[in-house]
């Protein structure tokens, strides 16, 4: 059992990427069962994030396309697979089936040639430009069936001022939303970043992490909200100032903006 616990611990740490390169190599080499767990984790990830994928930026797609080096066709399985393998018995000529056999052989030959013949290049579609954050927010606001909207206000924190305002649109069903913030101080990401916290009436302990973001403009900035955990009953949204990268749990030493849901 001790060995089992060790394995389990190793597997869980591997899922979070906490293994050293050596440990990981050993796991991949010696423990085929880990692939099953890795698969399960991938399926869970897909289940939790389904419907929230955003399009790959066109410029990145172009780079990937330009750098693509595929295996040589000669390395791959020959296109014999396009014809079912005949049993030895089936290959014995039989007068009654001779015509059929020739037809099958001809069909296989044509299919094989078709498989080897270089395919005509597919027309390259010009990808549509990715929507802006403002467009996505507006689309979200019109499509979310249970949208709630409320204001954020600046606090006494030096990052805020009398002119600092904000609005939140949030869908409980989608567990997503957007903040539109105006006149919050521009931050230097190397020194500090803003982090959103969603206070959840259904959770007794810490508020839910709503993501780290930067204010890059003196005017209006739109920030998508991505709650890291399901939010049961949102009561208050608060923006804190944290160290770069954000924190796991905030001491709420600097709260720059707050907004009460339903206010």
């Amino acid at each position, binding site marked *: 059992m001790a060995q089992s616990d060790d394995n389990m611990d190793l597997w869980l740490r591997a899922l979070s990427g906490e293994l050293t390169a050596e440990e990981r190599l050993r796991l991949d080499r010696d423990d085929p069962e880990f692939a099953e767990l890795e698969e399960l984790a991938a399926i869970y990830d897909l289940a*939790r994030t389904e*419907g929230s994928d955003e399009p790959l930026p066109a410029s990145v797609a172009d780079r990937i396309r330009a*750098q693509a080096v595929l295996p040589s066709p000669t390395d791959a399985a020959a296109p014999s697979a396009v014809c079912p393998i005949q049993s030895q018995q089936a290959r014995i000529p039989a007068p009654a089936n001779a015509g059929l056999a020739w037809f099958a052989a001809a069909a296989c030959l044509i299919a094989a040639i078709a498989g080897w013949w270089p395919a005509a290049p597919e027309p390259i579609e010009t990808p549509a430009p990715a929507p802006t954050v403002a467009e996505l927010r507006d689309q979200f606001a019109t*499509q979310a069936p249970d949208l709630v909207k409320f204001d954020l206000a600046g606090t006494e924190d030096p990052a805020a001022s009398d002119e600092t305002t904000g609005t939140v649109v949030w869908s409980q069903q989608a567990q997503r939303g957007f903040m539109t913030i105006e006149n919050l101080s521009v931050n230097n990401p190397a020194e500090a970043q803003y982090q959103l916290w969603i206070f959840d009436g259904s959770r007794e302990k*810490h508020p839910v992490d709503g993501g780290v973001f930067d204010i890059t403009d003196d005017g209006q900035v739109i920030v*998508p909200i991505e709650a890291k955990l399901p939010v049961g009953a949102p009561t208050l949204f608060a923006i804190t100032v944290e160290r770069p*990268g954000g924190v796991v749990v905030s001491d709420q030493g600097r709260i720059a903006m707050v907004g009460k849901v339903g206010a």
Partner: protein
Amino acid sequence: MLAVLVGVESHVGLAPVRRVRNNPVMQSTLAADLTVLERIARGDSTAVDACIKTYGGLVWSIARRYFKRQADAEDAVQEVFLDLWKSAARFDRNQRSETVFVAMIAKRRVIDRFRAETRHPAAEELPPTGIENPHADANPEICTEAGQIRARLGDLRAEERDTLDLGVVYGYSHAEIAKKLDMPLGTVKSHMRRGLMRLKGWLDDEPEIK
């Protein structure tokens, strides 16, 4: 398989269960039926666009959950696709769905790269997630296993779901999860273990663990 994961709950089946696709259509190897990765493995350069179109959004979304800077996410995505071209020949449709195969490679590459930079996830500088699922349009039967899990997410205990979300989806370390959820480290691991065990039972259609 996952005998250790199942641990003392020995009433849960321990036998390896593969979600093998027995659909005769899926087993056909006619060229027209080849999946994107199978075409890649055969050196079909016209499959590159199809692969990017089908899985670009998935890979990008995984990367952006970990990397705050767009440039970092872009580098990670390029690395994932380089790995996909090399690994395509290892894809076996009888073992797992193509989407899961791509997600496994993407997560592994992104997490390795992310941990090498020793930062914890943060990702809100980038544009937000879309409302629609682009790869669902490309292939409506994209991942039945994920659908199975999704249909029963509400049956997971809250602690199991929270620890799996933070650890598996967002890549927080166990220590970070313990701090975030105000739980002892051992409890975090127990919840993750039980949550994964429950998911496995659902996929294998085994009796529910109480």
